[in-house]
């Protein structure tokens, strides 16, 4: 048995497929691809698939890691080709590698958010991002009970940049992403909209990559 870290991208309409559903889709894909999988040894044997970092609904991803366990002889290149032959449109395996880092090394995620360039929107967004007062509501659990809490998003902005051309505005932003702290662009959007009193729907949101503590790519 060996562990392989496969990397996939999720683009176009599959971004509306939830994390749980992507998991099921991948499980079926490895079955269709006839990859010699290692099965758990319980009453209900199932293949081992570990998605390291869930994806929020509505976001494209370019470098998403997934660990699988293989039993038998197959090269990483073969895994990539076979899987790509059976995946639905929008999901593509970009490469397969050894797992170099531990899943717990994931600390941040880099996102690109695209907006339609309307008059003055870039200034407004920039102002809001620099205000230090972006707050969103998040449902979290306190002592096992569901509770809505106010989260300051501004404090979590690790890196931020804004650029624009005639058609669109591009915001690049890095948020904590991992087991302990997690802020995603959907939280940012609801914070921005409530700060600006607006109803902005971005053109697209892309997760570029996951990184470690030092903002080096997670491998």
């Amino acid at each position, binding site marked *: 048995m060996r562990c392989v870290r496969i990397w996939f991208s999720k683009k176009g309409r599959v971004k509306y497929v*939830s994390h749980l*559903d992507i998991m*099921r889709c991948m499980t079926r894909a490895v079955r269709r691809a006839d990859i010699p999988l290692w099965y758990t040894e319980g009453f209900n044997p199932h293949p081992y698939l570990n998605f390291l970092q869930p994806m929020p*609904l509505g976001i494209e991803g370019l470098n998403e890691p997934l660990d699988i366990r293989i039993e038998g002889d197959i090269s990483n290149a073969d895994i990539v080709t076979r899987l790509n032959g059976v*995946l*639905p449109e929008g999901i593509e395996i970009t490469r397969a590698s050894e797992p170099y880092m531990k899943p717990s090394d994931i600390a941040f995620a880099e996102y690109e958010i695209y907006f339609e360039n309307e008059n003055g929107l870039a200034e407004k967004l920039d102002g809001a991002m620099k205000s230090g007062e972006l707050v969103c509501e998040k449902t979290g659990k306190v002592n096992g009970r569901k509770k809505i809490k106010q989260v300051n998003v501004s404090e979590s902005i690790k890196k931020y940049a804004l650029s624009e051309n005639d058609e669109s505005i591009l915001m690049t932003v890095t948020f904590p992403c991992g087991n302990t702290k997690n802020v995603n662009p959907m939280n940012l959007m609801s914070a921005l909209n409530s700060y600006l009193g607006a109803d902005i729907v971005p053109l697209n949101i892309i997760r570029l990559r996951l990184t470690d503590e030092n903002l080096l790519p997670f491998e």
Partner: protein
Amino acid sequence: MNREVEKILNLVQKPARYTGGELNEIIKDKNSVEIRYAFCFPDTYEIGMSNLGVKILYSVINSREDSWCERVFAPDNDMEELMRERKIPLFALESGDYIKDFDAIGFSLSYELSYTNMVNMLDLAGLPVLSEDRTELTPIIMAGGACACNPEPVADFVDFFQLGEGEEMMNDVLELLKECKKNGSTKREFLEKAAKIQGIYVPSLYDVDYNSDGTIKSVTPKNGAPAKITKRLVSDLDNVHYPDKFIVPFIDIVHDRAVAEIFRGCIRGCRFCQACFLNRPIREKSPEVINSDCKKICESSGYDEISLCSLSTSDYSHLGDLLSQLLEWTTDDKINIALPSLRVDNFPEELIEKLNEVRRSGLTFAPEAGTQRLRDVINKNVTEKEVIETSEKAFAGGWTAVKLYFMIGLPTETTEDIEGIAALAQQVVDTFYRNPDKPKGKGVNVSVSASSFVPKPFTPFQWEPQDTPELLKEKQEHLRESVKTKKVSLHFHDIRVSFLEGILARGDRKLGEVILKAWQKGCKFDSWDEHFKFDLWLDTFKECGIDPAFYTSRKRDFNEILPWDHLDYGIRREFLKNENKKAHEGITTPHCREKCSACGAAKLNGGNCDAMRKNMVL
């Protein structure tokens, strides 16, 4: 994807219901096809995508080079609200194009409570909901499915119905539509020609006259339409089109697995069961073909479960052979085989063992009635002894949960029969504790589901009154009081829903107005308890001057012309009448393999019925 649609996707629950893009969906070049077909299922994505008919016909239409069939489901309330607010008409999943611009729209009507959803979807599409208000040839609106056997309540909305099995009929319809489009024919010309295709019923070509008491006086065909419309059926299941690829949904749907159909029709003749009579005669598929269907579907989908589909799985004559063939490869591939619709009287032990090699699924039995007397009335030829013996085997095989299905409100039912349900469930519980090898530390759970009986067209009970909601309520209470143990959990159907189902199932054209008005008041998703608005329905009946009791609690005379009497499903009316009389005398009818009871269905299949394995006397 349409940007307007994309803007709202982040605001709704489960947006993947509306995006398409699943594995094995079919995309074609819209400029290179002649017919664009929107296949509509009037319920949510999760339900519609589970429907085998949808999968089959999607594949049948798309196997034609000249046609592109796309899927459409009823948007949930949150999505509908946003679509209406932003004026986005109903679109098809594959292309995202608006279905009002398609050539044909087909609805699959599996249950009566989806009628308002169909009307709502037509309106959401931006089309007039009434057939007479749509004057152009395209989009032509058709409907099929089990409800087509009495389509009169929705005759005002749909241009024509497909009676029976659609695989071959659909091709005839598409050919005609193609020709009529080319010739610039009018809608009327198309419909008059369509009425000549076997299985096609064009309601606007029939005038219905009523007696003063509200019953039907006559149904008169016009413009050359046939007096009797005979259902279509497929003779040879081995050679009819069956999908080798299933669309694999991203989101969790109700039945998310490979499905192989093993035979059509049912030999049992339970007198309440519409599916049995609508789908006769028996036609079996050979185990080799089924095995190869299963293989292809599993390979192309990655499913790890196969469900063998029929009305009564253990009546399939080659079941053992089929399972051996399947188990040859499914065990290695870790694929589970599910056998729904097993009967208690021929549930073979070795079957349980074979299936145990893979994973264990649930066990459900349907004794349907609590006492032998009532089971004889409904011709459910299952004895208490058989139920207990089968439970014994199942418990010995390691099962600890059993589901039992019953109906209440059956003809001739008494309180004794209700108490019998509780007693039978109790006996199953006792059987578990009698088992010396029962698993340690585990209790038993017997789940009793009691639905309310709704008399349906083309069954021996089509003339019977339905119990009033008040009486059903009493019976439910009585059953609840009769159950003395916590090992038995009781589940009931909403009585009000069954009441509405009963009205619509045996309704006539007068109900068209009621459905239209109820929908206008906001009725839709009637089969969903949380969306069902019973009060609005009652208001509407009152407003239209229609007494629901006329359709539900009235015993029909054998001589009365029933709203579906001009439709022919092969079953002789005389046979149904006889079965009805025998029911009231408590006399059972042997199943078709024991003795052919000459129901008449085989005449639609050149006299062939696989129950007898030889030509029968017509």
